[in-house]
């Protein structure tokens, strides 16, 4: 799988000051802590931030990036007063898995005009949960296309909404035209246990995929 960037961590640590004692930091995390990232994708209003909030140990945080800088790559602010800028907001949560491991969950921007942000988001991501709303299944097509093209493992969570048609998993699989190996789960991301099940299924799927690819 083309995820992560080998050797990058050791190179960077070597360049920094290396005389850090393990008890240097507070907060219960070792300095050798590793961060991993999973994405929560799907159409606008499908419940991405709800899922992040239901399982994160912190209230979902919001960070933002500016379109002008990423799309144009300006080096300075000359002429900026004439440029149009767009701000894209990302909601994310954090789960401390152990002293050595912290998991970040990032909701992907729900609107097509924010595709430029997906490269940074997907870089190094272990995998993704694609949330689907059976009232408008087509809104998750772009996410599925993106992860398939990038060879990023994903699972599909069919989020239950009041009044949404109750399709079977097979019907959803057929409608979304995804591979048989892609897990599809019915979920209610307002519930912590349901969100957790999605993350477990995703991580199991990532492990399965990596085992297969390593032969």
């Amino acid at each position: 799988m083309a995820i992560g960037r080998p050797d990058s961590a050791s190179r960077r640590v070597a360049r920094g000051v290396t005389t850090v004692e393990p008890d240097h930091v507070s907060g219960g995390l070792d300095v050798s802590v590793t961060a991993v990232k999973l994405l929560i994708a799907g159409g606008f209003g499908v419940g991405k931030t709800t899922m992040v909030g239901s399982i994160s140990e912190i209230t979902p945080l919001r960070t933002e990036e500016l379109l002008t800088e990423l799309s144009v790559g300006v080096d300075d602010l000359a002429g900026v007063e004439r440029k149009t800028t767009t701000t894209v907001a990302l909601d994310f949560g954090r789960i401390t898995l152990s002293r050595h491991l912290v998991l970040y969950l990032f909701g992907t921007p729900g609107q097509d005009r924010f595709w430029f942000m997906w490269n940074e988001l997907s870089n190094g991501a272990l995998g993704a949960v694609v949330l689907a709303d059976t009232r408008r299944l087509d809104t998750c097509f772009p996410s599925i296309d993106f992860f398939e093209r990038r060879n990023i493992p994903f699972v599909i969570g069919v989020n239950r909404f009041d009044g949404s048609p109750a399709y079977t998993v097979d019907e959803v699989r057929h409608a979304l035209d995804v591979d048989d190996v892609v897990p599809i789960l019915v979920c209610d991301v307002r519930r912590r246990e349901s969100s957790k099940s999605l993350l477990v299924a995703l991580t199991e799927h990532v492990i399965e995929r990596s085992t297969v690819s390593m032969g």
Partner: protein
Amino acid sequence: MSDDDDHWFDEEAGPLVRPYAVTGGRTRAVHPELDLITLVVTLQLDIRSWPGEPEYESILRMCRAPTSVAEISAALKLPLGVVKVLVGDLIERHQVMVRSSRAPDTTMLQAVLEGIRRI
């Protein structure tokens, strides 16, 4: 001079100019390896020798425990690009070290799985 149509502080100029004031107008990080979940750890909290913006001090205080670029951005309410520039400055001054995500191996993936099952 009193032309209302020619106003510097209009809405279009604001969103980009204000956040980047703290970087002296620099918008591109010198350290392209910094990403959303790069963890920043303070090595040296001494801020007396640092005459710069108060944001540097905020970052150094936050990162006494490993803190991601995204969290710094959220806490300081600054765009990611600005935070990357500021963290880059602190790397240059050896006041922080950073740990970027690495390619996952089976051991790490198993640890992630076990961690999620425990929550």
